[in-house]
């Protein structure tokens, strides 16, 4: 049996063994100076930013209409004065979707009468649809849709007349 520490391989291995022993007996106890943004880097970490929150805004028919999903905009729609953010339902309400007519508009009449036709929408520059001629059943239907939207999507604003400030 020969034991020659002078051999390069043995010296290298010995150095590595000494290094390991040193790290076990005297462990590192230094925290990174800046707090990392990933939990994999360190136990102490902080996410980069807050989860996104939408600001509750007041919209008019004119300011609501750009939000129809085109040009990378969010998709908003209004029922009975409450504005919902339906960007998650881009397949339905985005450009080319089945209900794309409603994007950026007041969809109250359409929700009540269960129709997606153009004649359910009032033009942007006219006063809001008063919905006076709806039957009780249609109003219930509309309220059902409002519940559905409140649960599935985010309430992010309210709709007022064009000239109200």
């Amino acid at each position, binding site marked *: *049996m*020969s*034991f*020659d*520490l002078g*051999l*390069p*391989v*043995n010296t290298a*291995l*010995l150095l*590595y*063994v000494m290094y*390991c*022993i040193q*790290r*076990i*007996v*005297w*462990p*590192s*106890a*230094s*925290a990174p*100076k*800046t*707090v990392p943004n990933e*939990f994999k880097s*360190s*136990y*102490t*970490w*902080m*996410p*980069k*930013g*807050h*989860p*996104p*929150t*939408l*600001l*509750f*805004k007041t919209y008019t028919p004119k300011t609501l209409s750009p939000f129809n999903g085109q040009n990378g905009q969010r998709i908003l729609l209004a029922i009975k004065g409450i504005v919902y953010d339906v960007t998650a339902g881009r397949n339905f309400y985005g450009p080319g979707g089945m209900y794309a007519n409603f994007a950026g508009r007041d969809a109250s009449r359409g929700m009540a009468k269960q129709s997606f036709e153009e004649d359910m929408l009032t033009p942007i520059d006219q006063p809001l649809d008063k919905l006076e001629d709806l039957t009780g059943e249609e109003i219930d239907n509309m309220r059902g849709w409002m519940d559905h939207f409140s649960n599935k999507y*985010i*309430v*992010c604003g309210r709709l007022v007349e064009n000239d109200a400030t």
Partner: protein
Amino acid sequence: MSLSDYLVTDDLTVILALAAAGLFLLHNLYKPQSLVHPILLGRQSDAARVRHPGESAVFRNYGTGMMGRFPVRPAKEQQVLLDLIRPDQDSPRTLWKTKLTNPELRRRVSALGTGLIKVAGLVPEDSNVLLLLNDGLEFIIADLALASHAIPSFTLTSMSLLSTVLENHPPSAIITEAEFLPQLLELIYDSHESSHHTIIVVGEPAAKYNQGLNQIRVIKFAELERQGAQVEPVASVPTDPLQIFTVSFYQTPTGQLRGAQFTHESITAGVTAIRSLMPSSGPLSSLDTIVSAHSLSSAYGRAVAYTALFEGANFATLSSSKLVGTENGLPLDLADTKSTEVYPIPSTTLLFVTPSHLTALATAINDKARNSSFLSYSLAWRHKLSGVLEGFFTKQSLWDRLVFDGARVEVMGKGAGTVRSVIVSGGAIENQALTPARVALSVPILIVHSHPQVSGPVLATHAFDVQSFPNETASPGTSAADNYAFSYLSAVGAPSINLEAKLIAVDDASIEAGEDPVGRLMVRGPSVGVLLDAESKEGELEKGWFETGEKAKVLPNGTFKVVPLST
């Protein structure tokens, strides 16, 4: 020389290679695992998806979630305060000096209630009683008796409020300690109170007061209990959990007197919140001994006491929580933490203390350990610190046995082996003070933010969270006090399970830019008390929001940093 000449190996190589492989595995795989995965600490509160202008989003505890309902009672049976003393749990436990079972306690409560109504002449729902007692079994019995007969009780968080309260909200009767009776009588005469007073005295008053004075009747507490036990008990009024049964008077930093009205539901909600502070691996149980530094006259102290009573745990308070009969407050230090050793209670398992107590304990333990042997202390400190930086701590490691246990026994006595968690509230802790405390005690240390208007904790950290953040850089626009708080003080965690919090008066532009919201803290939930004599019930007050008067900031991981009130 060719490469093969360098790579000559012999038997030593084999040995060294095996040793290297073994050490490599040991070093890399034998790392301590964090007690809670850091990914969970990155999202500690659930934020609403929409916020109103000028306000931040509403934050709730991540466990409750934005859609969850707030739990208001530990179990369905606990509707009113007396239900917290479970009649089916009949094993004895020690409360301060007395060992008794739940059925015995309920009997004493019923006897006192009968005595109060029949002998002292109090009328349910009509009379008010001021509780000027130090923490003790008599306080609990009186509180439960008054609550079960729908007689509102008043408590004061500080004796300086006594004259104001007597003036503005004169009570029909006062329950007080025998030592304080002369001063109280003086105070009543000085203010020329024309209404009748009944004073119920705990303890033995001086003989000259036994017959009362003029219109003031003096009755002994023990006498009331005795007489109440002898006659037919008065049935307790079936009380509605939403009925206000107590008002806790406190003073804001600006000197304004405020009354926090609590219903039965607020206290049961506070008890639920305190129970949820403990991790599911180590919940509260009847084997615990809870020691609290918070007086029963404050809302949070009351909730802690009732949690102990509900769980069937032993309970005592530190002598610094004495209200009556002390000139200035007693110092919150090491001797104070051992002040419960005079009581015949088992060794402490849970400490609900203030930051001064925690730092006193940590400094004492570290100093004792350092003095015993500097070299082994440095080694032990190094190892424990590296564990804490990985998120791991334990009381059973080699270093504890070698170095820290001895120091802990010297400082805490029998508590060294039994204390299993420390819950700190009632002040601000600096970031730098936390790591020494974590190493010295090696038990879960929770930081809780409490408020006199809220019966449970307002904000609380995760039990196993030992993240240590460096001091932040000061931001230019904020005031010096805020900068100090946000840079040097530690975060106080996420909202408690039955509370929601939001910040108002925030800068919308900076939040949209992605900065942390900074504003005034408002809370809402079943454990928040209703303000007495609120001037107007409009605006936020109407929707149930209460403004705590403190400035706070929300960090990206959902925890809050609060600037403490300047008292």
